[in-house]
């Protein structure tokens, strides 16, 4: 039995926006085993990035606030850590790859300096040694070490993303959070970056939390999948569970929205409507409004989280043995 490297229990995050409260994350439970890769899939505003930032304790406060729950990293609650302790964990134990490589890098510093910065923060090492390590790290991600003195604008998008990956991996973190690492990239470059992440994962046995909206990328990289909607996990299971037996109506809708390369459909079957306003989440199931199978019972209370086969969880009343 492998150990859980990360456990999120009943996480609630809210942002205040004037008089309103944005309920971004509403009771998320997730576990990630050592060396495993979990895909967190959802649309814009579903709470994916907020979840990631909560793990790093980087929710901007104010306006954001973690209002409940625990995040256990190797059994220790990150919520109780001091800021100084967190700073030691970030980049060293848990690292994050940010979505947009164009804005994640500092345009005024050479890329070598930016990689060396994180190394010098976490290791007692001379400036010259840190720079040498930074160059070696660049080689690992497939960029000539000799280019360490160049600035971000001198690199292409794919290369910038590799620099961001080099920064994230410079101190061999045990847990890597990748927030849409390939969304800004072209497909041939995306394939290279995914290959790189997988190689490094194998080499360093890093656990991976991959945040994306692309079900194709998840199928290539992850072994477990969690589908997130309006701040809740609506379905969770292994790759096989989700791709061969999608059960939550939202998951089914997501698959129906993607044009398939191997089959020809004349019309797509999109999910009608939009995600509910997170300041006014409805009582009952958040997906009810857009769901074709909704019934009266969906409109009130908390939806049950049902295990429909071992390890395959679905948050839908349909599976709780109630008649609709």
């Amino acid at each position, binding site marked *: 039995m492998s150990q859980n490297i990360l456990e999120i229990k009943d996480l609630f995050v809210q942002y205040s926006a004037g008089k309103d409260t944005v309920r971004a994350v509403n009771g998320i439970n997730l576990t990630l085993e050592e060396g495993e890769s979990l895909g967190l899939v959802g649309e814009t505003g579903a709470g994916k990035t907020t979840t990631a930032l909560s793990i790093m304790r980087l929710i901007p406060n104010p306006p954001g606030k973690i209002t409940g729950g625990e995040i256990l990293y190797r059994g220790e609650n990150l919520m109780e850590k001091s800021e100084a302790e967190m700073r030691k964990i970030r980049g060293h134990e848990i690292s994050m790859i940010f979505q947009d490589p164009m804005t994640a890098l500092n345009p005024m510093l050479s890329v070598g300096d930016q990689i060396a910065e994180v190394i010098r923060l976490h290791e007692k090492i001379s400036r010259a040694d840190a720079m040498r390590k930074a160059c070696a790290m660049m080689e690992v991600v497939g960029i000539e070490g000799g280019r360490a003195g160049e600035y971000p604008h001198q690199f292409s998008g794919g290369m910038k993303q590799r620099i961001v990956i080099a920064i994230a991996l410079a101190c061999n973190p045990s847990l890597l959070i990748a927030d849409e690492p390939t969304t800004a990239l072209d497909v041939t470059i995306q394939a*290279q970056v995914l*290959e790189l992440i997988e190689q490094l994962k194998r080499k360093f046995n890093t656990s991976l939390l991959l945040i994306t909206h692309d079900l*194709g990328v998840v199928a290539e990289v992850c072994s477990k999948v969690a589908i997130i909607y309006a701040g809740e996990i609506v379905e969770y299971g292994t790759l096989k569970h989700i791709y061969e037996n999608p059960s939550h109506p939202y998951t089914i809708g997501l698959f129906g929205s993607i*044009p398939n390369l191997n089959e020809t459909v004349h019309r*797509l079957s*999109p999910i009608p409507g939009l995600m509910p306003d997170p300041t006014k989440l409805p009582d009952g199931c958040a997906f009810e409004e857009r769901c074709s199978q909704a019934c009266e019972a969906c409109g009130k209370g908390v939806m049950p989280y049902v295990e429909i086969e071992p390890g395959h969880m679905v948050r839908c009343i349909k599976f709780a043995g109630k008649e609709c």
Partner: protein
Amino acid sequence: MSTLVEVKNLKKYFKTPRGLLHAVDDINFKIEKGQTLGVVGESGCGKSTLGRTVIHLHERTSGQILFDGKDVSDLSKHELKEFRSHVQMIFQDPFSSLNPRMSVSQLIAEPLLIYKTSKSSADLGKEVGRLMDTVGLARRFANSYPHELDGGRRQRIGIARALSLNPEFIVCDEPVSALDVSIQAQILNLMQDLQDEFHLTYMFITHNMSVVKHISNNIMIMYLGNMVEFAGAEEIFKNRLHPYTKALLAAVPIPAIIEGRKRQLLTGEITSPIDPKPGCRFAARCPYATDICHAENPQLDEVLEGHFVACHNVKEINQL
């Protein structure tokens, strides 16, 4: 069926401090009325420049553009305005392509006012309302501003603006790339419905393979300013002949479990489009490149019926 848009030897070069950037280099194609041409390629391959040059948002460097049989390469200012009421564009980013200080109804009314198509303000209001219905935008949003709306609704405004002058030809530059998949599917369905209803002709520019296959009749693959492959949508996915097309399609992640999936990776540096040397521009990354590829430009040949490929070694690679 008749040809609506025909482009012959179109070139668009940009002057840069480092030399001439060959953004679009010698492109030929035709689009039949009511059909969709998908233009696919990665960022920087010149697909947006091509779209913009075809509808005169960029001045072409050389070549010919025929619209409905008429040469529209050199138009006077007055003729250009007339031409532009027949061709429209839907832009990629619904967040930056709409003026944040105009309300939805003002945004949709703008092209109508410029072309003075409505006789009275009551007429104009009616027309705006009709357009909002056409694109599925609830009338209660008429006085909202773009920042109050989500990406899908904003893109619907962009589509309503493009439709307002009853164009025949619309260049769609990555119209769904900024949207979530569930919204993306809604917009794609809308665009197909509008095409059927108004008999529109689309040039659909995208980097998303599954979207382009879904919506196009013909597909053209671009690489660094050149057209490398052109064929019917079904055909190109069945029979990928150019090495770049093969690599591109193999790199698309498929949302399904595929046993023993092997990633095919391209290596090598991307050739610079600034003052390129003769030779195939893909040669530096091509696993099949031979000496001739580095020396001579490949010509676009009809390898199979209706299937054009620009590759010196296409016959050997595909055993044709």
